[in-house]
């Protein structure tokens, strides 16, 4: 009932805002669009097969009048099939044995139907300055599979281009020169200024290259899953990025050094390259090092696994390689093969993908995933192999 009320509030908010915007000069009508996305997941794990499915509806509202733009989207997720999971079922048995039996129920997770405002913002701009207030998309970094400088989003390496939810913030972009800009962002995460996020970014274009320097201070959290206690500490990230090309190869990289208030400082970086052959075959490779990751899989513990699954850390292992091969079989069908290889423990995940633009406004994606590693490794076969079938109909 609350969900329906929230949805109606969203629609009313959009209409009221449109009425406010409409009387202005050059006003445009409220644009309503979005998509419906049914998804079926089949999983085969430890001799058992499961299915977990979802229906997702995204409704976007957009309106602009001269230098003011309003945008918002609301997402409704409906889950069916197996909705309740216990994260411990996916962990190596020696790790599960470390968890006291009385605490095992804490690791159960249920996918409940949700309705939420994904983004809602107002953007005011002139030719040199843009201010955006509200819940908005913030994407940083040049990496494809992972972004060391991006602490706002955690990409799913199996599906790295999937949209991310918005973040509450106030953002100011200033264009200093052609291809030179600065960005200031304030993200009021905590109750006061000191503990909220403050970001500065300088972007400079030189020749065929773009360079970025980033500084970000915010309150980070780290959970100890043995004691179920949370440590909050200030994290200061300094990062740099580049993207360009050498000898016809696309190259990019990004690195971050994190100064931690309590825990040990650590670094993270990623280097990538891509090339498109005359036939249309596209190849992308990325190397990623997470200074906080472990080098021996025998050292992985409960904290490593759960921080990874719950999004507190990007990887469990220190070094990984990502590869993507894409080939357009026809103008409407692409075949893809993605692979994530954990150099530190020798395990890998292979993800074959078919992308088919089946109708003018309907995309069909079929993704498989196969884990090859032995017991205890990051991409171990205990995680189960599966298929995701996803259709997306735009309106």
């Amino acid at each position: 009932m609350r969900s329906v009320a929230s949805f109606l509030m969203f629609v009313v908010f959009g209409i009221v805002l449109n009425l406010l915007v409409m009387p202005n000069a050059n006003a445009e009508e409220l644009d309503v669009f979005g998509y419906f996305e049914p998804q079926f997941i089949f999983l085969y794990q430890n001799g058992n097969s499961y299915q977990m499915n979802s229906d997702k509806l995204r409704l976007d509202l957009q309106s602009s009048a001269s230098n003011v733009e309003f945008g918002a989207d609301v997402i409704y997720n409906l889950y069916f099939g197996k909705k309740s999971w216990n994260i411990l079922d996916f962990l190596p048995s020696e790790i599960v044995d470390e968890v006291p039996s009385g605490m095992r129920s804490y690791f159960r997770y249920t996918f409940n139907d949700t309705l939420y405002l994904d983004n809602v913002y107002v953007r005011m701009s002139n030719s040199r300055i843009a201010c955006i207030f509200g819940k908005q998309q913030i994407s940083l970094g040049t990496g494809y599979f992972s972004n060391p400088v991006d602490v706002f989003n955690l990409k799913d390496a199996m599906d790295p281009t999937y949209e991310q939810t918005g973040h509450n913030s106030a953002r100011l972009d200033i264009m200093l020169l052609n291809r030179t800009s600065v960005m200031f962002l304030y993200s009021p995460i905590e109750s006061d200024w000191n503990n909220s996020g403050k970001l500065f970014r300088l972007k400079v274009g030189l020749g065929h290259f773009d360079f970025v320097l980033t500084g970000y201070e915010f309150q980070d959290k780290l959970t100890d899953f043995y004691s179920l206690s949370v440590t909050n500490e200030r994290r200061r990230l300094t990062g740099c990025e580049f993207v360009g090309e050498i000898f016809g190869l696309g190259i990019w990289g990004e690195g971050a050094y994190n100064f931690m208030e309590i825990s040990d400082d650590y670094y993270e970086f990623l280097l990538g390259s891509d090339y498109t052959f005359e036939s249309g075959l596209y190849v992308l490779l990325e190397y990623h090092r997470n200074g906080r990751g472990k080098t021996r899989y025998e050292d992985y513990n409960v904290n490593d696994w759960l921080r990874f699954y719950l999004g507190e850390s990007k990887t469990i292992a220190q070094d990984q390689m990502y590869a993507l091969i894409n080939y357009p079989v026809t103008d409407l069908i692409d075949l893809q093969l993605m692979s994530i290889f954990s150099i530190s423990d020798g395990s890998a995940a292979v993800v074959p993908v078919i992308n088919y633009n089946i109708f003018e406004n309907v995309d069909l994606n079929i993704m498989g995933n196969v884990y090859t590693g032995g017991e205890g490794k990051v991409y171990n076969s205990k995680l189960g192999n599966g298929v995701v079938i996803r259709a997306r109909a735009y309106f």
Partner: protein
Amino acid sequence: MLRKVLLIFVFIVCFGLIAEETGEAITAEEIIRTMTETLNPEQSEAVMEMTITTSGDQERTFVYKTYSKNGGEKSLMKYLEPGRVKNQAILMLNNADDIWMYFPGTNRVRKLATHAKKQKVQGSDFSYEDLGSSNEFEDDYKSVLLGEEEKEGKLCYKLELTGKKDSDAGYSRLVAWVEKESYVPLVIDYYHEKDPELLEKELVLSNVKTIDGIPTPMKMIMYNKLDNTKTSMSFRELTYDVDLPDNLFTEMGMKK
């Protein structure tokens, strides 16, 4: 007196003939330069419709807004339709030597390296280079005037353009029929990069109208002879009488 008048008459006729002869001695380079200037006015703003017909006869239609400046050296495309690409944008600077793509779903801008220039835009028969490079005919090809020929019912210059050594030419040679009156190319045949006898694509331009004083082909169809596909592009709206700010051709401009 009569002899003087006759002499003057003969002089005028001869001078006229010489002048006319001199006017016709236009070079291939001059034709290509005038054609390039005609096709790439200083600035433009347009809404275009692109329809791709696949080898299986399926159609996909895209509508996008396009801006260009400095005779096409800078260009920006913003997709309006269909929903799956709505608000996506492509920025091309330095005649498509630098390409950025904006994905609104993640608010991410991705820079494409030049190897992507020759790739199809949204699966069409036009490459990024075809859409964003305004100087390729002059810079990448050496042109020869083969003569005059009637094409599509119009008298045309027939030219052959051969890829220069060490250039970035995407084709081994081109044969173009450029209308004498308007300097608009009516047909351009593109031959395969590795086989100068293999016809890869044929571009047919039609429905030439004068917009803001500039002759403009309102419809273009690119036939891919190897894949048996075609892509047509037509203007829904077009003006050359605009003053576009440089800041439009930036990352900020892509997102606006």
